[in-house]
């Protein structure tokens, strides 16, 4: 601000600035919070991904992150997330529809919705140990089945591999699907079905031409959310398999907080960057789907 600025203009500007500050003051804690816990770490991860241990810029980490065991871990992570997202989405959608078809104040509905809220957040080490206690090699169910003459481990089942992780993930994916997909189902108006019926549509035609197209965007959006949910999970898989199944978060864990491999933190950051890119793509697609969905459900 120079000395020539007329007083009136200066006062006007000051007033506007004050108004702006007051209007946005409430945002400051949020900005500081996201800055510290989201912004700064992301910047550090991205910078670190492109540096070697001496701080010199390089793309070696990025190339290494997509080769050999790290490339495989991305493939495995994506495969696991996609598989459990599809399973969770399909089974969860069916369950949500079944629950909605039941009585509005019925006991089934209450139980399923509250159980979903709890189970969707049941994860990490406790969940892994719950499964080990149930289906592990000395688990209750395993032993009971053995007592009945059916040895599930002898017939090829194993909790401590890809299949095992997938089963455990589906356990929390289904309830999450029920939670995120139920509002979309509730948005379906009874009148649409009646109108279709009045015009002579069969049940199949109603699902094929009306309910299906309306529900597809929210269904796909929910599935993407499930994908992101599984993609970032770490503790459950680690507690269950001690890293035998190579997932990206587990590889990052070995690199940044291990006892065996020294000096590879920046490679871990490069893997982290890869995860950020995958999740960002998924979330961009999710938002786009959500916008399409809200056109119908608004």
């Amino acid at each position: 601000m120079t000395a020539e600025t007329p007083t009136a203009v200066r006062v006007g500007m000051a007033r506007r600035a004050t108004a702006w500050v007051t209007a946005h003051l409430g945002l400051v804690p949020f900005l500081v919070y996201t800055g510290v816990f989201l912004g700064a770490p992301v910047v550090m991860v991205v910078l670190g991904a492109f540096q070697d241990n001496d701080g010199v810029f390089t793309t070696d980490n990025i190339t290494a992150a997509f080769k050999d065991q790290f490339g495989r871990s991305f493939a495995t992570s994506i495969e696991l997330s996609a598989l459990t997202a599809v399973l969770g989405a399909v089974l969860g959608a069916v369950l949500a529809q079944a629950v909605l078809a039941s009585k509005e104040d019925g006991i089934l509905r209450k139980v399923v919705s509250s159980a979903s809220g709890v189970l969707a957040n049941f994860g990490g080490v406790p969940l892994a140990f719950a499964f080990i206690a149930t289906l592990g090699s000395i688990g209750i169910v395993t032993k009971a089945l053995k007592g009945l003459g059916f040895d599930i481990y002898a017939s090829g089942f194993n909790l401590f591999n890809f299949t095992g992780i997938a089963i455990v993930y589906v356990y929390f994916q289904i309830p999450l699907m029920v939670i995120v997909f139920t509002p979309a189902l509730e948005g379906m108006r009874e009148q649409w079905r009646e109108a279709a019926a009045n015009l002579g549509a069969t049940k199949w035609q109603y699902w094929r031409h009306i309910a299906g197209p309306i529900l597809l965007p929210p269904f796909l959006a929910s599935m993407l959310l499930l994908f992101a949910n599984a993609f970032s999970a770490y503790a459950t898989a680690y507690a269950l398999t001690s890293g035998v199944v190579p997932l990206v978060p587990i590889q990052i864990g070995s690199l940044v907080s291990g006892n065996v491999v020294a000096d590879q933190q920046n490679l871990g950051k490069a893997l982290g960057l890869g995860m950020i890119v995958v999740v960002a793509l998924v979330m961009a697609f999710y938002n786009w789907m959500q916008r399409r969905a809200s056109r119908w459900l608004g």
Partner: protein
Amino acid sequence: MNRRLAGIVAGIATVTLTLSACGGGSDAAAKDTGGAATAKSAADLGGLDKLIEAAKKEGELNVIALPHDWANYGEILEAFKKKYGLKVTEANPEGSSQDEISAVKQLKGQDRAPDVLDLGGAFALSAAKDGLLAPYKVATFADVPDAQKDPEGNWVNDYGGFISIGYDAAKVPNPPKSFADLKKPEYQGKVALNGDPTKAGAAFAGVYAAALANGGSFTDIKPGIQFFADLKKSGNFIPVQASAATVESGQTPITIDWDYLQAGYAKKLQGKIDWKVAVPTDGVYSNFYCQAISKTAPHPAAARLWQEFLYSDEGQNLFLKGLSRPVRLNKLTAAGTADSAALAALPEVKGEVKFPTNDQIDAAKKVIADEWAKALG
């Protein structure tokens, strides 16, 4: 749009200011205690008494990643506190070597930065190369074999052990004595490692030992990976990370781990589980951890006193009591100062013991990192 941008910029500026405020400002925390930070031996400070005096003036010691049931660290910490009246702050007891290095780098200049470190070999070497360690020679430095210390004293081996097979005597009436035994069908779903060998040093050592037992060598760890792949295929291996908790709950009736960790479990579970430890006859593998002082230790005198304590007869005997093998063990037994009861309790080891070189270990780690998940997944 511009305004929104301005808001974001302001937000970031605030964050940066806050962060830099956290980073700086506390440099004053490192008190100067008469040149302790640069002392390369107690003599530099005018003898052990002067070192004790300086350490008492600091009054505190920060340690990191020392689990109490690991090589008897619980008792060692207690003894040190009692002897010198210092307050010991323990951070991240379950932390890894990498966590320790990260803490040194990230907490530099702060009161709560670690003073002393207990590192895996590769980490000690790289930390010394990066100039993170303070060279220091304890009074008994000459007792340590040359191969087990940095010539400048940046790091010195402190204690080591053997890869051993631990088992619950109640659940495993016919105990395995070798890696070959572990393949027997009677151990189905019973054999565990201490975690993921790409992450846990003890598990890595377990695979190395298995390699030695199966025709491999220090330059060829692949037979070890193959051994566990076979064990997994037959259903004997369960990839649950063994710990005192899994041992107690019965999930891991047989574990392959350092003998001193197994001894820790046995002590912790005394009266509940009869946990026995034996070094396998076919794969004898031993390795040592390294003790070091952080160059930026906030309590440099206390850090040096801790080293003197660990390498004194008293400290070494405390390691021995935890069934780990202190680095001066040969000197202690020769001088007759070793705790005879603890010595008798060590698992028996047959045959000559050799150590891999650091280059061999590094090469083996690369193979493990690339092959483990592929073979076991």
